[in-house]
């Protein structure tokens, strides 16, 4: 049996602090038992080179080890300087109060642990316990930042600060999906998800350490080229033109997608990942908006066609820059509101978080596409035939939309009206489980991280999906409705990794596709199960 780790072990010299052993992960039911012995493939030294892997032999960031003692000391100094800044209003007015409250009032009662799907599914690996990383930060803060901390450390919880501790803490902040289930059950209100994000922020804003997918290829590329996918405005326009043609071919519906219409009521901003990976989502929005006679537009300005804001996961400065860019585009287009497409983190970033960043004429109203869609479906303007969606459907709740925004019922009202075989997952709504791709995990795949995600952080969602359809025949096609690009990408990867299309006939897609699939008068369906149309 493994010796349980304690927070102070974070600074222990060892090649690997925690290794998941075969058979430790939560078991999967038939016909997936053959995956029960799978673990993330150990990284080989020749592949990782000088990269720090000593947390759990999984790499999210890829931090190079310091070359000398002097370099190590400089990094520790930099870390402490960043930690100090987390507690200064000039540097961290954005989250100073929530951070202080969560750091100073935890009773270490462990109630949060039982709510965390990563901890549970990993076979209760100590380092993934929500309080583990928080306690590490708390002890470092008390010992190295608070006056007299070194004298009182034996009393308040001792910890040594060295390179191992810092590098592991950075990696460990990327083993939490920031789903905040732990915070929702904490009797005191302590938020370990917030602490994980603050750790990420310290590393990014002070030390320039962040996963490449989030920073270099994420927010920087987004602000520079217009999209975190690397897609330029010209490419986006080309793709959308192609989508128009494809919609005509797939559904028989002729749609005109408007660009840069000044004074339109709605500026619709998609996650640009939809344009690349799920063009039917973009097409379905165009069809339903056009059919409902809405006044709307897309924007071809840099970042105006990509609503993502990866800053929400790791960096307040980048978060602010992207949010201001989005708001400024809407302001210049003179639209009445921004409607955010099916992208969960963008919902939260632009609607909730940016709410206290945008002032004056930048404070353009923002609305969830689920609310807009519900209004269209329930208004009676359009006719629908729910029998076209006569297949089992379940709904995945994106954490950022439900738990962080309280948008719970509009999507359900649509499904109850248009999907006769809709059933809930257990639990659902604000008690949902993350898809496992939250906080950037969906787009992070260097080294063995994607495998870790499929095996550990997405495992609970996979079990939930299987449970929701347990009474259906394996031959029946089943639809997982995931109204969020990152959740959708994660569910796509789960289905692929576990070969669930072959074994359980699992398919996935968005909410708007289901809506258009039931739209009366459509010549052909927009949803297909493999190469078979969902209705004839």
């Amino acid at each position: 049996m493994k010796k349980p780790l304690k927070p102070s072990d974070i600074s222990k010299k060892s090649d690997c602090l925690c290794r998941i052993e075969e058979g430790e992960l939560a078991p999967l039911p038939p016909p997936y038992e053959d995956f029960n012995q799978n673990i993330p493939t150990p990284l080989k030294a020749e592949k990782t080179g000088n990269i720090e892997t000593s947390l759990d032999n999984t790499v999210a960031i890829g931090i190079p080890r310091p070359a000398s003692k002097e370099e190590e000391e400089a990094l520790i100094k930099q870390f402490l300087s960043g930690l100090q800044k987390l507690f200064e209003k000039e540097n961290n007015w954005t989250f100073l109060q929530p951070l202080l409250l969560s750091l100073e009032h935890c009773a270490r009662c462990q109630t949060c642990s039982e709510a965390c799907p990563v901890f549970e599914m990993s076979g209760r690996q100590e380092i993934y316990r929500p309080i583990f990383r928080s306690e590490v930060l708390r002890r470092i803060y008390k010992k190295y930042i608070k006056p007299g901390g070194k004298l009182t450390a034996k009393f308040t919880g001792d910890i040594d600060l060295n390179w191992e501790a810092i590098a592991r803490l950075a990696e460990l902040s990327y083993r939490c999906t920031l789903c905040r289930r732990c915070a929702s059950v904490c009797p005191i209100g302590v938020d370990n998800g917030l602490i994980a994000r603050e750790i990420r922020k310290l590393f990014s804003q002070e030390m320039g350490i962040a996963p490449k997918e989030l920073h270099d290829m994420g927010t920087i590329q987004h602000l520079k080229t217009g999209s975190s996918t690397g897609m330029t405005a010209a490419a986006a326009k080309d793709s959308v033109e192609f989508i128009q043609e494809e919609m005509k071919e797939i559904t028989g519906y002729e749609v005109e997608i408007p660009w840069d219409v000044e004074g339109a009521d709605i500026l619709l901003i998609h996650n640009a990942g939809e344009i690349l990976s799920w063009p039917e989502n973009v097409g379905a929005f165009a069809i339903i908006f056009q059919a409902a006679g809405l006044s709307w537009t897309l924007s071809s300005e840099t970042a105006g066609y990509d609503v993502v804001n990866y800053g929400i996961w790791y960096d307040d400065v980048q978060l602010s820059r992207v949010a201001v860019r989005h708001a400024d585009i809407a302001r210049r287009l003179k639209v009445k509101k921004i409607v955010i497409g099916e992208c969960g983190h963008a919902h939260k970033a632009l609607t909730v978080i940016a709410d206290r960043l945008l002032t004056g004429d930048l404070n353009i109203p923002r609305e969830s596409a689920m609310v807009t869609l519900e209004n269209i479906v329930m208004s009676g303007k359009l006719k629908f035939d729910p029998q076209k969606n006569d297949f089992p459907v379940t709904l995945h709740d994106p954490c950022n939309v439900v738990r962080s925004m309280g948008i719970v019922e509009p999507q359900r009202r649509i499904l109850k009206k248009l999907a006769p075989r809709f059933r809930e997952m257990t639990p659902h709504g604000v008690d949902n489980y993350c898809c496992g791709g939250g906080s950037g995990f969906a787009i992070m795949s260097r080294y063995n991280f994607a495998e870790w995600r499929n095996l550990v952080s997405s495992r609970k969602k996979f079990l939930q999906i299987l449970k929701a359809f347990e009474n259906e025949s394996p031959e029946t096609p089943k639809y997982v409705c995931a109204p969020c690009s990152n959740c959708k990408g994660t569910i796509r990867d789960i289905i692929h990794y576990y070969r669930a299309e072959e074994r359980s006939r699992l398919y996935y897609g968005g909410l708007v596709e289901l809506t258009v699939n039931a739209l009366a008068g459509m010549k052909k369906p927009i949803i297909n199960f493999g190469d078979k149309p969902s209705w004839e």
Partner: protein
Amino acid sequence: MGYYILTYLCLAVFITAVGRLMYRHLTIPVHLRWEIYPVQGEPADKVSYGGSYMEEMNWWEKKRKSSRVNEIFYMAPEILLMRGLWKENKRLWQMSFPLHLGLYLMLATFLLLSISSVSTLCGFAEDGGIMIVNGLSVATGWIGLIAGVIGSTGMLYKRLADRELRDYSTFADYFNIVFILIFFLCAFVAASTVDPLFNASRDYVLGLFSAGRAVPAYVPGRSLPGALTIILASLLTAYIPLTHLSHMFMKFFLYHRVKWDDTPNRPGSPIETAVKKNLEYRPTWKARHVDTDGKLSWREIASSAPKEMK
């Protein structure tokens, strides 16, 4: 008189520490929104499933509905009965609840003794209502002491016996529980042996209100358990707000200022004024994409491009 001075000093520490905590959190900059639903301030129909005003089409054009009553109905059992812990962690609740109940009832007993003492000073000692207050203080005192002894013993046992709690407990955590347990034990022994009807306790509180000059103000030191109880109760009062035990009242901020703070930033609102002020702060973060050496404000940085793009 030394006992009275100790109690006064400890009360002063308590008031100063609580005041400092409150002041810090009342004057801290307005932070970005980070609420978690259900937000209990939403109307009842929304609270039932965790919905928000953002489910409404064009919500910004409508008058916002919120409900303080819902918040109170939620917080009362949360504070008094620890409903959240009962729901999520029943095994811990079995010990944590009696401990907290013991502390609440000690506070209630002190308040009842204070009412009685003030009434005595005002010449209403024989009043029927005061007799009821005195009777109540005996009931709250005894129930509180029994609950406190059971709860603090149980919590100490749990912290020591449960590996998951033990590995995250610091010396301070054990010290806190042992401190509370010793206080409850001393008070229990004092009540059992020399003060079953809390008359001496009442006299001590009367002495506190009269600086020891009123008759029949208690002369501390008449019994060892009584003297220890006075010392420990005073020290515990000063100690609580200096530790994480202050979560008992700081929970207000954790809930109302973070978890349930979904107040939108409407044009011209106090929130907007606060945000404008925040945006003028000049950060000194050092990473390449933000490094401005404190020369640019958040507003300027948010409107600028990162260095990587230049």
